[in-house]
């Protein structure tokens, strides 16, 4: 059976155009873009061409793009890069629903003496931008709010936050990894100073990422060495990867609206279908103001990893924010932040779609899921009739 990938925010397939564009840089055109001899010429030209394409996708200028190895590196570079470049400002404002690659650097900065103010989020996962003004201080170095959480998909009020940040003269970073390629992004219109993206969520290769840094905004590098990326990211370029991300960015820009429409249809059919066929199940995040390729739920009385494993046996891939599906054995901080009862958070499942998904995959999924849920519910001591409070405390 052909496997169904409903986990596109982990990884999308590579487009054939992308693969083809990469191939020369894995065979005849091997060379270091920094080399001033003939071997450096094609790679150098290729990465500058890719830089313009990536910039085009988010309406930035090419010189505002720094190539990195992934979205996590972009987030780390943005946060630590800004904090270290503004050593006198020791305060950062952040949302609590950030990706781990934002949360963990923030925790480290906190240990190093930075103070973090956490914005509130409502039960749909929307960050409360109105309280932002009251949190901004003279020593605020940075505001960081994700454009959309990969766990709940809610689109955040980035424009509003950007406007306040600009008025107050505070630098604003957004992790847009989950958005780029399926939601239109215009860094100028959004008033963002830094924006993180990753190639492997818009049909480019893994191991590629970029950070947009607005002209005039100073950051410190994480990796020091050569003068690659204006000295802000030393290390030999991943030429083939960068070229691939460039082509993926160009196609993403051209096909953005078409892809969006296509994904919205799959998303809405799946959300409607699940809510109709599975009792005691609720959507997490906002129903309409969400990523076009994202559907997430809590299925009550059962546990997410068990659901995913049964789906996996049916060749359907998804993900979960439950305690048991995490290596760190912690329930999702995002679900916790939006006030979901940790008992229901155990039944978290997240499905993210891509242009390679077909409507019949959604239909098959909607047939496969209900019996899995029934089976696991039959095994569970938690039921609708039982008072779940008796299972809340450690025995």
């Amino acid at each position, binding site marked *: 059976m052909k496997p169904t990938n409903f986990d596109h925010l982990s990884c999308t397939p590579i487009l054939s155009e992308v693969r083809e564009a990469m191939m020369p840089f894995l065979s005849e055109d091997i060379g270091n873009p920094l080399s001033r001899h003939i071997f450096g010429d094609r790679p150098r030209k290729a990465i500058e061409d890719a830089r313009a394409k990536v910039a085009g996708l988010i309406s930035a200028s090419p010189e505002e793009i720094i190539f990195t190895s992934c979205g996590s590196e972009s987030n780390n570079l943005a946060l630590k890069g800004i904090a270290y470049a503004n050593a006198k400002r020791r305060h950062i404002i952040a949302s609590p629903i950030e990706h*781990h690659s934002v949360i963990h650097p923030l925790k480290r900065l906190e240990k190093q003496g930075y103070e973090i103010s956490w914005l509130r989020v409502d039960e749909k996962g929307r960050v409360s931008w109105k309280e932002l003004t009251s949190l901004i201080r003279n020593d605020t170095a940075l505001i960081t709010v994700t454009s959309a959480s990969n766990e709940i998909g809610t689109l955040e009020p980035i424009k509003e936050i950007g406007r306040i940040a600009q008025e107050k003269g505070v630098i604003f970073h957004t992790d847009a990894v989950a958005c780029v390629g399926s939601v239109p992004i215009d860094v100028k219109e959004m008033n963002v100073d830094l924006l993180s993206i990753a190639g492997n969520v818009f049909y480019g290769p893994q191991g590629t990422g970029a950070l947009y840094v607005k002209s005039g905004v100073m950051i410190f590098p994480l990796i020091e060495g050569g003068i690659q990326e204006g000295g802000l990211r030393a290390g030999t370029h991943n030429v083939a990867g960068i070229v691939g991300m460039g082509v993926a960015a160009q196609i993403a820009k051209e096909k953005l609206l078409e892809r969006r429409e296509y994904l919205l249809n799959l998303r809405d059919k799946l959300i409607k279908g699940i809510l109709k066929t599975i009792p005691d199940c609720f959507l997490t995040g906002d129903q309409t103001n969400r990523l076009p390729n994202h559907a997430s739920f809590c299925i009550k009385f*059962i546990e997410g990893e068990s659901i995913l494993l049964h789906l996996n046996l049916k060749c359907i891939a998804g993900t979960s*924010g439950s*305690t*048991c599906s995490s290596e760190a054995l912690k329930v999702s901080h995002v679900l916790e932040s939006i006030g979901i009862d940790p008992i229901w958070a155990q039944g978290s499942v997240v499905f993210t779609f891509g242009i390679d998904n077909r409507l019949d995959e959604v239909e098959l999924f909607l047939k496969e899921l209900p019996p899995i849920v029934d089976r696991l519910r039959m095994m569970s001591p938690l039921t609708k009739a039982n008072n779940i409070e008796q*299972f809340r*405390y450690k025995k």
Partner: protein
Amino acid sequence: MSEGHQFSQYSEKVIDHFTNPRNLGEIKDADGVGEVGNAKCGDVMQLFIKVKDDKIEDAKFKTFGCCAAIATSSMITGMIKGKSLSQLNEVTNQAVAEALGGLPKTKLHCSVLAEDALKAAIGDYYQKRNTKK
């Protein structure tokens, strides 16, 4: 989201017990019931035992939790059936994990939970027997 999934780390035996759990259900007139874990942390195990002539005559379970929790519940009920009460100390968490062909490191606590459920069920049995007397 959760940092890294681990389905592929499960042995065939774990998957077998997870997909076809043995001894699933409740025993209405159980002689001992053990309930451990908590739903907030992702697992609750209920173990029911029926005891006759100091032997485990029947054992059943209900479990809320991940694959490892369900598989260890299924395995431990099978391992204790027919055993005398004095033999039950052989059924340790290591023994259950071994019988399943091993568990991923982060899932070993599920086998501890199974052993705890057994201890709790036996404790409940003795308590009920003593109050009867």
